[in-house]
């Protein structure tokens, strides 16, 4: 009967109950949604590079090296000579390497000079390999492979010609117009900075800079695209390189050997460690987000409590009738508590359904627009803890209207005159 009373009482006040439910559901969707996206973003962030044991660049801080080599943010302080790269590549513990050459751009998108090992060895998001949406890896000096976003945003297709620009600005006055590249491949979306990258060969990078010096064309020297093909296009230096080891057991040994390399000042970083350090720096923002959502939830719960408290006066007659037929004041206390419990449980259920549907609907948009690969199942053991804590918090807050009902039941007795 208690459950029936609570259920039908809520239904009787369905207008205010629905509004309370709505605000509580929105708060819970925000809480669970942001918590889930936060975790997934961290997962997605740390999945940007996978299966790479070391990243090597000129001596610098590990975050700087990570940012420019993986996230294409910022610039290297110096380059790594090609000879050094070749020597380290031959280390018996090293299985593969991917050279990275940065510094140019195409309409605001970074250009990455590399070799075809990139397409066979680079892994992201839990060992996923790069897939081509269309075309194939570059084979010629002036071939280019576009990341998914570059192709979709700029409307490029296979066979289109693009020109690269010196520097990384969206608008550049130093373009390599004399040596256009042809799009030979477009990568499938990865949800990583790769989608915003134009990939060309190291020889291509060398070719466009063959008549340049100190970041500007050499006066009086012009080498055409065809002429460049006849020249030695072996790079003199690269920006950084990724390393895959024969065995992960050797990671720290090889790292130390590279860091102590006498020929050149180098830094070898463990991408996982650097990513964790970077995420640690972002934790403050993450915690702030969580705090805001918690406050939204508190506002929802307080709103529910206020609505119930406001309804107590109009429910005096109902309480008096229940008292008259033998209900103890504690019964009325429990009735209010049960109503709150029902509202919170329904809100939790609605929030869960809304969240799954929203994630399912937004999964592709989040992946393509924000690079977030979100699992549509937002629930974990921690979600259960959250749900328990929310139920407890609502029960504590419900004590205020419930105690009000209890007090009124004691004070008003049987006869409420309306």
């Amino acid at each position, binding site marked *: *009967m208690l459950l029936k009373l609570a259920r*039908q*009482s809520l*239904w009787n006040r369905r207008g205010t109950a629905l509004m309370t439910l709505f605000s509580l559901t929105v708060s819970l969707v925000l809480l669970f949604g942001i918590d889930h996206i936060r975790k997934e973003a961290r997962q997605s962030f740390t999945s940007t590079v996978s299966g790479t044991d070391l990243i090597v660049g000129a001596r610098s801080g590990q975050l700087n090296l990570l940012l420019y080599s993986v996230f294409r943010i910022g610039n290297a302080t110096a380059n790594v000579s090609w000879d050094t790269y070749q020597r380290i590549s031959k280390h018996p513990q090293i299985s593969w390497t991917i050279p990275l050459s940065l510094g140019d751009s195409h309409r605001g998108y970074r250009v990455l000079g590399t070799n075809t090992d990139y397409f066979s060895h680079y892994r992201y998001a839990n060992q996923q390999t790069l897939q081509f949406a269309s075309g194939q890896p570059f084979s010629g000096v002036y071939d280019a492979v576009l990341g998914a976003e570059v192709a979709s945003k700029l409307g490029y297709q296979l066979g289109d010609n693009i020109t690269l620009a010196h520097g990384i600005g969206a608008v550049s006055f130093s373009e390599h117009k004399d040596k256009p590249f042809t799009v030979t491949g477009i990568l499938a979306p990865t949800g990583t900075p790769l989608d915003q990258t134009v990939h060309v060969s190291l020889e291509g990078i060398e070719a466009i800079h063959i008549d340049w010096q100190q970041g500007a064309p050499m006066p009086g020297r012009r080498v055409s695209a065809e002429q460049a093909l006849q020249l030695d296009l072996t790079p003199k230096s690269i920006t950084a390189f990724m390393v895959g080891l024969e065995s992960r057991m050797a990671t720290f040994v090889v790292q130390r050997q590279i860091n102590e390399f006498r020929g050149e000042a180098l830094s070898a970083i463990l991408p996982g460690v650097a990513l964790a350090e970077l995420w640690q720096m972002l934790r403050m923002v993450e915690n702030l987000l969580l705090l805001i959502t918690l406050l939204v939830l508190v506002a929802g719960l307080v709103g529910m409590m206020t609505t119930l408290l406001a309804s107590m006066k109009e429910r005096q007659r109902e309480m008096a009738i229940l008292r*008259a*037929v*033998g209900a103890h004041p504690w019964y009325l206390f429990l009735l209010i508590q049960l109503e709150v419990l029902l509202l919170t449980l329904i809100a939790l259920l609605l929030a869960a359904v809304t969240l799954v549907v929203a994630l399912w609907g937004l999964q592709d948009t989040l992946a393509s627009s924000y690079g977030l690969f979100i699992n549509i199942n937002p629930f974990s053991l921690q979600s259960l803890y959250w749900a328990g804590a929310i139920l407890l918090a609502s029960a504590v807050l419900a004590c205020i209207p419930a105690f009000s009902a209890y007090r009124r039941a004691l004070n008003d007795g*049987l*006869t409420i005159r*309306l």
Partner: protein
Amino acid sequence: MTGMKPVTDKPIFPAIELKNVVFYYQPAGWQMSLPELILQPGQHLFIKGASGSGKTTLLNLLAGIIAPRQGEIMLGGTPFSRLSPGKRDTLRARNIGVVFQQLNLISYLSVLDNVLLSAHFAGCNNAESRQRALLLLQRLGLGADLAEQQAAALSVGQQQRVAIARALLTKPALLIADEPTSALDADNRDSFMQVLLEQANACGTTVIFVSHDAGLRQYFALQLDMQNLAQGVQPCC
């Protein structure tokens, strides 16, 4: 736990007995005292009194919502006023029916659920109670088709009859009626009184009826004027 048994099981005791009852609200100012009031099973008492004369307080005392400051109230031989509030609530659910002036029902419950509320709190909400509730409703002129309707859909007169059914469902020793006819017209009032007393008699229930309508005195053998409580009034014949 003799106090928990229906008092109708003990006909040798008066239905209700008040001895040297004194009640006042803190801080003490207004005071009500009732040296003695004894009602036997099946007796009907009419209480009249103006506003502020203490009718509400007396009803709350009789129903066990409040306890007297001095004296004792016995319900079917059980020292009702000395029980804990929780036990008084249970005893009230089993032995006291209450009919209010108006708005007697919980509007969002069905007619039948409203009637069954008293059985629920008396701890006997079972198939038998349900059957008896339907029977009572039928006797009160409310057919089975109305039983599942929402209480709010009924007329005031019908609602008052449902309130009688609820009050009498557990065959209580005492029925307290607080101006239940004030919202009814003359025809409905007479019909209501007839039905109330008829059903109360059928259950052997003692009735305490509060009203300021002197015209209703005719239905009652015993009468009490609240104005005289300060002097201690015996029920007269």
